[in-house]
């Protein structure tokens, strides 16, 4: 029992740790190629992120969004579906949250307005995620293609709506919402002053717990994972595979959409065109490095948020694009060392049996 647990833990931790190591070595080489000392640059990176309250607040803020998009992608992968549409689902969620916040009256208290806006956000993402789910079940359209294409469609559509109907003159954002604002952390701890961190981080952590419970403690999660691993066996076990596909993509979209509240309700209090800024795509990397486990997703989100914020801190000495290279290295190294990929490679090399 304990040996089995240790084995699982090793299997879960081994790839990210190796990846981190490889990334550090690559980082050293890059930093030295700029004539800088790696220790100095890494010191700056840590100082700018974990070393002061503002930087740490920014890390928390970025972690929040990435946790949502990472959870969304990982839920899809658990069902055997690759949701590449978290970017537009995130945007659609943020948009509908803003619309809800604009429609609600300012007299409505937060305890009612915030859940309503969150519901709107989940609805927005859920619709955008549900479309590829429906097309997959009904016509067999591959969800990767549909979600990629839908990114363009949805982002352009939102851009058009905001630009023609809803924007504040001279900007590409909506007016400020009347209700549903989520308090920033600096209201409780003044040291966070100026940072975007807000209480959405708690929603993100609760979402991770909920996803974990759903996946591993409910029969629906059991069925969803079964479909992801072996659809034929799930079908044999009485699971309606099509319904699971549709449900998983809708739920995945809803989680990504919920991430939109971090910016719209918690930070700016309006919807701005392009606010997602790649967080949806980075969610794929977060899910991969986090090994599709909710706890792993939180840790991976924290890691990528640190790198992303750290890029700004070291920009004075080396180009901030360096951290993007490091992100890429981490993703590649993890992709190559996860057991699923290793097993596939081994099977490809093994000759077929009689």
């Amino acid at each position, binding site marked *: 029992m304990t040996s089995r647990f240790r084995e699982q833990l090793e299997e879960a931790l081994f790839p990210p740790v190796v990846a981190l190591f490889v990334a550090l070595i690559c980082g050293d080489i890059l930093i030295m190629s700029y004539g800088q000392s790696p220790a100095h640059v890494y010191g700056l990176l840590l100082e700018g992120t974990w070393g002061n309250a503002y930087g740490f607040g920014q890390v928390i803020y970025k972690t929040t969004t990435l946790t949502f998009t990472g959870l969304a992608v990982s839920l899809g992968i658990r069902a055997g579906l690759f949701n590449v549409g978290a970017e537009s689902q995130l945007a659609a969620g943020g948009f509908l949250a803003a619309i809800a916040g604009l429609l609600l009256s300012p007299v409505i208290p937060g305890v009612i307005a915030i859940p309503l806006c969150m519901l709107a956000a989940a609805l927005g993402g859920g619709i955008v995620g549900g479309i590829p789910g429906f097309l997959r079940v009904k016509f067999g359209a591959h969800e990767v293609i549909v979600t990629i294409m839908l990114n363009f469609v949805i982002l352009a559509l939102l851009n058009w709506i905001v630009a023609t109907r809803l924007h504040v003159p001279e900007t590409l954002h909506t007016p400020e919402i009347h209700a549903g604002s989520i308090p920033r952390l600096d209201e409780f701890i003044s040291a966070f002053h100026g940072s975007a961190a807000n209480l959405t981080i708690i929603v993100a952590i609760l979402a991770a717990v909920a996803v974990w419970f759903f996946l591993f403690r409910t029969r629906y999660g059991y069925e969803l994972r079964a479909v992801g691993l072996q659809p*034929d066996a799930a079908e*044999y076990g009485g699971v309606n595979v099509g319904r699971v596909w549709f449900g998983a993509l809708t739920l995945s979209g809803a989680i990504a959409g919920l991430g939109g509240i971090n910016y719209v309700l918690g930070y700016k209090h309006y919807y701005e065109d392009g606010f997602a800024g790649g967080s949806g795509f980075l969610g794929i990397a977060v899910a991969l490095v986090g090994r599709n486990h909710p706890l792993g997703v939180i840790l991976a989100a924290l890691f990528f948020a640190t790198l992303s914020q750290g890029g700004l801190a070291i920009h004075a000495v080396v180009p901030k694009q360096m951290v993007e290279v490091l992100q890429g290295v981490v993703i590649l190294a993890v992709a190559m060392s996860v057991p699923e990929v290793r097993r596939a490679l081994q099977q490809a090399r093994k000759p077929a049996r009689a």
Partner: protein
Amino acid sequence: MTRSPGGPAEQAERTKPAIRMAGIDKFFGPVRANRAATLEVMPGEIHALVGENGAGKSTLMRILGGLMKPNAGTLEVNGRDVTGWSTNDAIAAGIGVVHQHFMLVPTLTVAENIVLGDEPVKNGMFDYARAVGEVEALSRETGLAVSADRKVSELSVGEAQRVEIVKTLFRGAKILVLDEPTAVLSPPEVKELWAVLRRLRDAGGTIVLITHRLDEVMDLSDTITVMRAGETIARLQTSTTSPAEIARAMVGREVSLMSRQGEALGVASHPEAPTTAEAHATAGYSAALEVKDLVVIGPRETRAIDGITFAVQPGEIFGIAGVEGNGQTELIEAIAGLRKPESGQIRIAGHDVTASDVAGRRTAGLSHIPEDRHRRGLILDYSIADNLLLGLQDKFASKGRLDSDRIEQNSKAQIESFDIRPPAAELPARALSGGNQQKVVIAREMGHDFTVLLASQPTRGVDVGAIEFIHERLRQARAENKAVLLVSAELNEVLALADRVAVMYRGRFATVIPAAQASEEVLGEYMIGTRTESAA
């Protein structure tokens, strides 16, 4: 039985064999795919290599084609020792293999596919016109009609197969190996293929045909090699053998399990027996499982199940024998709810479940041991405990939440009562041996109350000890008045367990007879379609 004239084989007596394989051993880890296997094929003959799935036919042919090297033994082609050669050597020596799954590029034309790897070139450019010309010439010469200019994606399966054959001939193949060529063909296409192969033989070609269908063997071949469990069991002349003899060589082994053991256990096993009749009278239905006029459309628009009617009584094991691919898989999947029937009716314990989904049928009292545990029966990455829930997940959940205490108790009890080893509930199913994986499936399907059990190839790929165990469980289910529908490729198994035996042939029951009147000889004739009767 139509037979081809025996001329070529007699002529060949004087010449060296085209293929001679002797003492071939091939191991994959602990699996011995070939054990001292031998094969001798004379030039100018059609040689059938027969045996059940997993008998080692394909492995032997992969060694011949240079895809694998044997662990021991020698391979001679036209008298030359070529043991351990490569695929390129094999092609150069005139060996052409037509695989069961076509190796064609669908978006290219027939001519492009045929010349692929050896394209005619003019001024450094691919000379398509010449490719078409060469292919058309070869097509005329061999009488294999292919339309050189059409895309492969537009071809029927029969045409695609002809293209595969022309492709090997284009490379100068003199020895043609066809791996189950009829598995995907419709009957007229099979006829056409036979004509082609006879023509090639008469032109001096040597053909090895891998198959497990005895009618094809009798119809086409000159000589036969029978393989079982990696060994060569017999080499026969088609003109002097019978389907029964081949069937015996294919499936026969020392029958350690006597039939009619049900009676030895003192179980009233016949549907006519008064105790069972009483039992279903009180239960308010006439049969545990009733199938009426079932029609299932298989791949390629053919009728995989062509109007089958039967009933299985409580306390009865109803066995279905037959050569694989005659509709057994489709029948079981249709009853289980995994395949939609075209027409007909299925009733479980008196309830019409024709329109129900898999879960609905399970609720109605159906249990199902699927034929392929790796594809359907198990989630290999799930733990034993989680696999013991598959299909029962609703019973182990309240308001959607899984009850981990009950899951733990259940797995503990099942592991013990079905002797699953190692007894570690959290171990993934992938880590178990085949026999123990099957025990997990059986524990799940038989470890709770059910009315009807579908047992499809329940002992496939499991060791002897597990076979005994599984057979005992099936008999016990009968003793407990359950209805069991047993499908097995092992004739022995059907004979040892069933009360009544149906033989499936081309989507129908060729016969339904009480097991007491069944013997391998009788069933064998029905299996290959030499005997038929309108049954059930």
